[in-house]
């Protein structure tokens, strides 16, 4: 039963990844920790490998559809470790709760922008 739920959540994570271009870790981690009994660290590490596999297949499919700009992706991907360092510094300076609430506010702000744009753009 737990395995079946994990499979369904993994399927949903992949589906979300393909639809909106995220890795799916938001769903993979709970599938691994809640339903397959991995610890949080094990779940996040294992999820990372799944994200690479899923994103790779998604990239190949999207490239087939003509929807990938590889040079842009390379710049973004290669500079991300710099961001991880920035994140570590920030995490040591600011309380975790403040960070979570800030990011929640930012997510809502971005969501609002996307909705406004989607409802006004003639695409």
């Amino acid at each position, binding site marked *: 039963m737990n395995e079946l739920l994990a*499979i369904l959540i*993994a*399927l949903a994570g*992949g*589906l979300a*990844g*393909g*639809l*909106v*271009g995220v890795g799916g*870790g*938001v769903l993979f981690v709970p599938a*691994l920790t809640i339903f*397959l009994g991995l610890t949080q660290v*094990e779940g996040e*590490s*294992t999820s990372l490998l*799944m*994200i*690479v*596999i*899923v*994103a790779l*297949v*998604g*990239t190949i*499919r*999207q*490239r087939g*559809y003509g*929807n*990938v*700009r590889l040079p*842009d*992706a*390379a*710049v*973004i*991907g290669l*500079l*991300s*470790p710099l*961001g*991880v*360092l*920035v*994140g570590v510094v920030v995490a040591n300076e600011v309380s975790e709760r403040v*960070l*979570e*609430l800030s*990011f*929640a*506010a930012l997510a*809502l702000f*971005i969501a609002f922008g*996307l*909705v406004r*744009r*989607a409802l006004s753009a003639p*695409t």
Partner: protein
Amino acid sequence: MAPDPALPSHRMLRLAAIGTLAGAFSGLFGVGGGTIIVPLLIFWFGYGERLATGTSLAAIVLIGLLGALAQGGLYGNVHLGTALWLSIPAVFGVIAGTAIQQRIPQRAVSLLFAALLVAIAIELVLR
């Protein structure tokens, strides 16, 4: 790189900013960089939703690989067998998701993304 007459240095700076932010947010919140990459490619570069999500997936491959390397093979915390078998339904999902995405209006992708962001915001507040 494809010819882009519009301010290549600004373009590069913005891409660098997206990469740095994606790394920072994934390090801070454990949410994938895609949450940041997709909207910024749309807002800053005027990418269509399909191009933004496709390019985001390609960047995530690199971010994930670099993350795994940085953690030194993840200290043996990866359950390899579990990752591989659970990736099978996930891969079916991503193939279906990309196929569906080609058949729905791009603005619908934006609305789905906005719904995902609201869900993440709620999860962060309740954490």
